[in-house]
């Protein structure tokens, strides 16, 4: 996409006024919006994303989910620049196949997270503009969530939101799942039904206030019995 400095919006030129020398350059990145969320429970994990693909003031697609299934026990959510998301997931798929062929076993969630960290860091000086969150089951069957920054720093969490509405969702999750800023409340463990309902409610709130989030919600629930996907409609405006 051409850098937006000379343009006042689609089809319009900015009003002329002397602003000094302006450098218009090609930017290799674009921001395609989207929000991703992952929650880890005792024996399940949930990865959810909205399905809107936008750029600037336009919506390219209302049906572009950001969760990608990697193995039977791992799902990755990628938001940011869609081009980099696609390439990154292709590279991860290829590396998963190579691992399977050389080691005769599927990669575990922790191993995928460590590998993704080095893949992202190999582009330290020209990063993939992707915010990743991996959700899955670890070797003991417990839910695991790994969150990343664009250059590969990562850690294991219980819950994490990433993408355009992450700053709105994360405090809500801190309160409801982490019981932060609540006094005298019993810390009940999170059940699968309650977690799925919470994810739906949280995305409905995000769609209300973030322009880049909406259209539909794709929820992937990962349990030892496999990955179950549901699609729930959200606001289309």
């Amino acid at each position, binding site marked *: 996409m051409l850098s*937006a400095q000379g343009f006042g919006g689609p089809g319009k030129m900015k009003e002329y006024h002397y602003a000094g020398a302006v450098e218009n350059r090609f930017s*290799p990145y674009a921001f395609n919006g989207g929000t991703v969320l992952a929650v880890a429970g005792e024996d399940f994990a949930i990865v959810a994303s909205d399905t809107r693909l936008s750029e600037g003031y336009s919506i390219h697609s209302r049906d572009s989910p950001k969760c990608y299934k990697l193995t039977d026990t791992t799902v990755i959510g990628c938001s940011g620049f869609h081009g980099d998301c696609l390439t990154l997931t292709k590279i991860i798929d290829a590396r998963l196949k190579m691992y399977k062929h050389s080691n005769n076993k599927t990669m575990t969630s922790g191993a995928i997270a460590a590998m993704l960290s080095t893949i992202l860091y190999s*582009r*330290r000086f020209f990063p993939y503009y992707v915010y990743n969150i991996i959700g899955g089951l670890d070797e003991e069957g417990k839910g695991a969530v790994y969150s990343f920054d*664009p250059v590969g720093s*990562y850690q294991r969490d219980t819950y994490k939101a990433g993408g355009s509405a992450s700053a709105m969702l994360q405090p809500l999750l801190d309160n409801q799942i982490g019981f932060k800023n609540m006094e005298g409340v019993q810390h009940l463990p999170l059940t699968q039904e309650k977690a799925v309902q919470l994810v739906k409610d949280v995305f409905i709130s995000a769609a209300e206030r973030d322009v880049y989030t909406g259209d539909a919600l794709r929820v992937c629930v990962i349990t030892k019995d496999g990955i179950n996907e549901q699609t729930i409609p959200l606001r289309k405006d």
Partner: protein
Amino acid sequence: MALVEVSGLKPFSETSGQIFGTRQTHLVDRTNHYSFGSSVREFAVPVGEEPSGFLTSCNKEGGVNIEMNHGTTTLAFKFRHGVIVAVDSRASAGRYLASNDVNKVIEINPYLLGTMSGSAADCQYWERLLAKECRLYRLRNNHRISVAAASKLLCNMMLGYKGMGLSVGSMICGWDKEGPGLYYVDENGNRLSGRMFSTGCGNSYAYGVVDSGYREDMTVEEAYELGRRGIAHATHRDAYSGGVVNMYHMKEDGWIKVCKEDVSELIHRYREGMF
């Protein structure tokens, strides 16, 4: 052969290439993702652009906003009974708080610890690489690597990428044949041995606290309290530090993890004495 690669022996063709000056690391526009395990490290760089200024130019007004995790206070000091290492646990990405419970100490082996401050990804990557090199050293030479050598390895890694915009402020702490060791290594290739260091954006506050309470002959409990206070007061005044205090004590027979305490509770406890 796998064994040849692990033991680091190079066939003559590769060594002659090095003698004639080819670089150990390649900078290409696209990394080869399928050569994992190779000894040559490849990093992609933007074509025709200077790497350290590239992201700032992308982040300009109207462009995208790529933020990486940053910010810390860490401190370490030597005293009669070993080395105390204390770190906070906050990671910020621009103005957003990415996480309040990051682990900023890497446990390289039971006798070596590394702390991380600056860019989270840089520290995690290079110190994991350092841990791998320390393990290989142990396997090849049948004795543990010294703290001086480990810090020198990290320092040389940093010098290889000097000027490219890495941000690493690390302290390598350990106990080897020379006794307790503490080295400070940063992205400019500075490597200093010393009795006390503090790194990160909250370091000035931590220095103030630790300098005023430090005595070489402190008891172990006094040293723990000093480390805790240093980090707690730094997080109180520095916006980019916070979370919990993770504290380790490096002793002659290895390190132990002393505590993991929330700073707001610590400040509450100290409040009686503060006003």
